[in-house]
């Protein structure tokens, strides 16, 4: 028995452990320990500005974030903004990514040239993207976007206050996020398209299916798993929204662009309220886990259907 066990791990045991150790130590120190710390701190009142040490608060932080009539609305406002942002960005960006990928998945000369341009924003750091768009979004008639709208509407559309109007600010943030991110999704969708067997299209053509029939009956089913993946990462990306908001609007105007991450970071970093920030982090992770489980569920159903 002892011999069998030895041969099961054998000579590899030591090497295996040694080769995993650096990665394992780093993951433990910088991912697992911080996450456990977040759970731990979320039960305390920890404040950088406080003279006394941490006080045990139990679930008070969660009560203030989720239940308290005075302190909870701001969190729900932030969560709603994330959801609204996701509801705008996920369909718009996925739809655009599919459209661009289908247009690029053609045997035409110079396709790679166009692909380069669609993908280019992906190599721009988000901070730079936000700053370029800060200028595009300038509010009066001197703004680039307002100038373009004015030109193409023959002066009909009046200058828009892209980042200062509470009804429009989140939409503006969504617009620049789509510009920055769609190239990434497009490439993933393009790879998905190229996996669809050409015979399916040939068969559809023999059946005299037109473009839209082929799109809905061959392309979309063939892309199903790719699309689920793209939708999930875009949804999670929508929940992570921070850089653009921090640089362009600081959560304003009147909390129109507050987000969960912005709340968490400002609680910790500006107010020094680490307990609250940690509790928000824990809620954030629970939401992400819920979304991922949902993805697993949908994918499993898909396999069973097949």
């Amino acid at each position: 028995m002892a011999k069998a066990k030895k041969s099961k791990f054998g000579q590899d045991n030591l090497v295996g452990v040694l080769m995993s150790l650096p990665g394992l130590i780093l993951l433990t120190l910088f991912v697992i320990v911080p996450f456990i710390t977040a759970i731990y701190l979320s039960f305390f009142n920890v404040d950088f500005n406080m003279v006394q040490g941490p006080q045990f608060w139990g679930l008070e932080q969660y009560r203030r974030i989720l239940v308290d009539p005075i302190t909870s609305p701001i969190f729900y406002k932030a969560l709603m903004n994330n959801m609204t942002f996701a509801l705008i960005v996920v369909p718009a960006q996925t739809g655009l990514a599919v459209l661009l990928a289908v247009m690029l998945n053609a045997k035409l000369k110079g396709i790679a040239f166009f692909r380069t341009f669609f993908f280019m924003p992906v190599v721009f750091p988000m901070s730079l993207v936000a700053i370029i768009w800060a200028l595009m979004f300038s509010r009066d008639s001197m703004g680039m976007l307002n100038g373009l709208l004015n030109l193409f509407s023959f002066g009909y559309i009046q200058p828009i206050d892209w980042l200062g109007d509470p009804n429009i600010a989140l939409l503006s943030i969504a617009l620049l996020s789509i510009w920055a991110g769609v190239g990434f999704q497009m490439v993933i969708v393009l790879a998905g398209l190229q996996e669809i067997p050409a015979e399916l299209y040939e068969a559809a053509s023999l059946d005299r299916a037109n473009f839209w029939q082929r799109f809905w009956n061959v392309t979309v089913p063939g892309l199903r798993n790719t699309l689920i993946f793209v939708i999930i990462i875009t949804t999670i990306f929508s929940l992570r929204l921070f850089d653009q908001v921090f640089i362009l609007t600081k959560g304003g105007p009147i909390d129109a662009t507050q987000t969960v991450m912005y709340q968490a970071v400002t609680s910790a970093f500006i107010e020094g309220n680490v307990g609250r920030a940690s509790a928000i982090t824990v809620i954030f992770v629970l939401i992400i886990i819920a979304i991922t489980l949902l993805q697993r569920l949908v994918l499993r159903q898909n396999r069973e259907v097949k």
Partner: protein
Amino acid sequence: MSSATEQAKKEVMRRIRRSRSPKKVIKTFFHYMFLTVVTAIFFAPIAYMLIGSLKPTAEVLDGINGFVPKNLSFNNYLQVFATFNDESMGFLWRFYTNSILVSFVIVFGGLIVNSMIAYALARLRWRGRDAVQVLVILLVILPFEAIAIPLFFLLRDFRNTYFVQFLPFIASAFSIYLFYTFFIGLPLEIQESARIDGAGPWRIYRAIIIPMSKPVFASVTILSFLGAWSSFLFPLMMVDNPLYVPLPLEIQVYFTQPPTDWGPIFAFGVILVLPVMAVFLLFQRWFIQSVAASAIKG
């Protein structure tokens, strides 16, 4: 943009000469028209930055005239070089070397650390392997934002250093996962015969696995580089000494400091993105393949 239009026209002419179906020609024409228009829309903000970086600040913010290239000069670039040339503002070359150093350590450290553990998970038998496998899969879904705040809390005594900027990012569950799925797919025969010839796992990893895995090493390099080079949230919390600030954070600092001089800010943006853009244009095929490989479909 004009070259795109020209290309489209040329292609259409070629098709007209060759093909006899007018319907197909019209279709191709609209196909190119669509691609050209979308390209113009996508490139507009970049063109705006490029042109604006060469114009006097007063003429950058001027509606669509911002696109008109006139009064071009390198004055904005000279101003950026002059501004970031002392201890209090920081040094431009220093922002660069900060970003390069931090990204380099994250990418190279990550290639070694993550490929080693992925190989051990994929090909070796050791105590605790199954548990580590589950752990890695669980951690793949955890975005950095989920641990940013406790990490800031735990490491707040080490602000304004280099190691705090790279150490937490070397090990990456996502990179391990990419390596793992690639290694699992490699043919076993060569590894088995090397083993019969007396090669140990370490030797097999170095002499057989690494040379066979260039595509996944390229993918992980590009994906982790893009993340590291664009890093913003963590430097924002951990670094405020201009001697340690990376480029993406510094452009935000520059943007926030009054007066907002658009010309030099755009010049700074071009300086920031130009090397990455050059690398992207050179290795475009690899960039696109890496992103395509990042999709985990179930």
